[in-house]
C-alpha cells in the first residue's frame, strides 16, 4: 500500500480524536476517581459499582445512544455534531472516562490510607495532599491513562455509528479497516491494521517510559 495522502489524513484524525477523548476522560476521570477513592459518604460503593460496570461499556451501545442523542430529533440535535469528528470525541470520551475513573480510584485506594493522615499531619492543604497522593500512585495512574487510550484508539463501533465513516471527514483507522475488509481489500486492511498497531505501540512505549522513569530497582 502506498503511504498516500488519505492514509496520512486518516491516521492524523485517529490520533487527534482519540487524543482529545483520552485527555477529556483524564480531566473528568482523575478528579472524579480521586473523589470516589478519598470520599466517605453514603452511596459510594454503589457509584463505584456503576463506574466499574461502565469500564466494560460496549462501544457499539455507546455509539447508538450518542447517535440517537445527536440526531436532529434527539435532545442534542441542535448542536449539529452528528457525523463530525466531535461526535466521535464525545462517544470515545464516554467510553474512556469510566476506565480512567475506575482505575484512578483503584490506584488511590491501593495506597496506605495512613498516608493521607501523614500528609495532613505535616501541614498539607487538601490540594497539596491530593497532588502528593497522585505522585505516589503515578505508576497505576499512568496505567489508567494507557488503558483509557487503548479503549478508544481500538474501538470501531461508536466511531462508525456517530461518525458515519465519511471519507475525508470522519474516517479513522478502525473504520477504514472495516471498510477495506468489507470491500475485500484485505491487503490494504492489513496494512492499516499494522499502522494502527505500530502507532498504539509507540504511544504506549512513550507512556511506559514516563511511567518507569522514576522506578528504582
Amino acid at each position, binding site marked *: 500500500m502506498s503511504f498516500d495522502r488519505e492514509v496520512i489524513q486518516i491516521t492524523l484524525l485517529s490520533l487527534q480524536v482519540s487524543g482529545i477523548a483520552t485527555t477529556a476522560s483524564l480531566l473528568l476521570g482523575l478528579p472524579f476517581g480521586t473523589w470516589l477513592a478519598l470520599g466517605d459518604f453514603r452511596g459510594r460503593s454503589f457509584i463505584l459499582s456503576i463506574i466499574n460496570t461502565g469500564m466494560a461499556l460496549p462501544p457499539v451501545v455507546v455509539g447508538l445512544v450518542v447517535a440517537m442523542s445527536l440526531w436532529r430529533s434527539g435532545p442534542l440535535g441542535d448542536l449539529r455534531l452528528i457525523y463530525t469528528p466531535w461526535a466521535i470525541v464525545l462517544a470515545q470520551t464516554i467510553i474512556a472516562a469510566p476506565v480512567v475513573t475506575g482505575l484512578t480510584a483503584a490506584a488511590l485506594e491501593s495506597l*496506605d490510607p*495512613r*498516608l493521607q*493522615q*501523614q500528609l*495532613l*499531619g*505535616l*501541614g*498539607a*492543604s487538601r490540594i*497539596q495532599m491530593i497532588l*502528593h497522593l497522585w*505522585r*505516589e500512585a503515578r505508576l497505576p495512574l499512568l496505567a489508567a491513562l494507557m488503558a483509557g487510550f487503548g479503549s478508544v484508539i481500538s474501538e470501531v463501533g461508536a466511531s462508525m455509528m456517530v461518525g458515519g465513516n465519511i471519507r475525508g471527514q470522519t474516517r479513522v483507522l478502525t473504520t477504514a479497516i472495516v471498510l477495506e475488509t468489507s470491500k475485500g481489500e484485505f491487503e490494504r486492511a492489513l496494512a492499516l491494521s499494522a499502522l494502527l498497531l505500530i502507532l498504539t505501540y509507540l504511544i504506549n512505549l512513550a507512556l511506559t517510559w514516563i511511567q518507569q522513569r*522514576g522506578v*528504582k530497582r
Partner: protein
Amino acid sequence: MIQIRDLLIRRGKIDALRVDSLDIRRGETLAVVGPNGAGKSTLLLALAHLIKPARGMITFHNTSLGEWDDVKYRRMIAFVFQDPLLMDLSVRENIGLGLKFRGLEGQEIMTRVNKWAKTMGLASLLNRRAGQLSGGEAQRVSLARAFVLGPELLLMDEPFSAVDPPTRAQLLKDLSRLLSRDHRTTVFVTHNLLEAAQMGDRVAVVIGGELKQVGTPRQIKSRPSDASVRAFLRELPY
C-alpha cells in the same frame, strides 16, 4: 497549652475514647501508655484534629480545635506515625516536605534540612531514595521531618515499635536528648511501660477506651486509680 474536657471520640458506632479532663503543659513530655487497642492512637489523631470529637472539646492556646483553621493549626504541630510513611522521594525531599507545604523558600528549606539531617545522623544519606533506607534510617528521616518544622506540639505514635531493639534503644536515647534540650511539648504514645517511664515527665494511662490516670510514673505506681491500672502497671520499673 492544651486542655481536653469531657471528650468522647466515636469510631463508627463504638466509643473509642473518653477523656474527662487532661491538661498538657507547655514544654512537657506526656507519655501515653496502655495496652493495644486502648485508644492511645485515637487520642493523638484527635489532638491533630484528624478525627473530630462526638462530644466535648480540645483547646489549643485557649481556642477550641473546632474554631482553628485545620491547615493553620496543623502547621503548628508535627505528627510522627508508627511507620515512617515516607514518600517516594529522596531523603532530602522527605525531610523538607512539611516546610514545602508551608511555602518556605528553597534556600531556607535546604539550610534547615541540612541542619536536622546532621543532627539525626542522616547527612550522608540526603540523596538516597526513601525505598533504599533501613528501618532505623527511615524512622530517623521521619523524626527529622517532624523536628525540622520546629512544631509547638509534637505528636508521636509508637515511633520505634517497628525497628529492631538496638536501633530502638539508640533512637530513644537520641529522642530523649533532643526533647530535654528543646523542651518541646510532646505527646509520646507507647505500649511499653519502660519507654513511657523513660520518656515522660508525666504518664497518662489509657485502658479500654478511657483515660484512667495521669501523673508521674512514681505517683501512678504508688496510687493507682483502680484495679485495671494496678494490673497494667505491674511491670513499671519503680
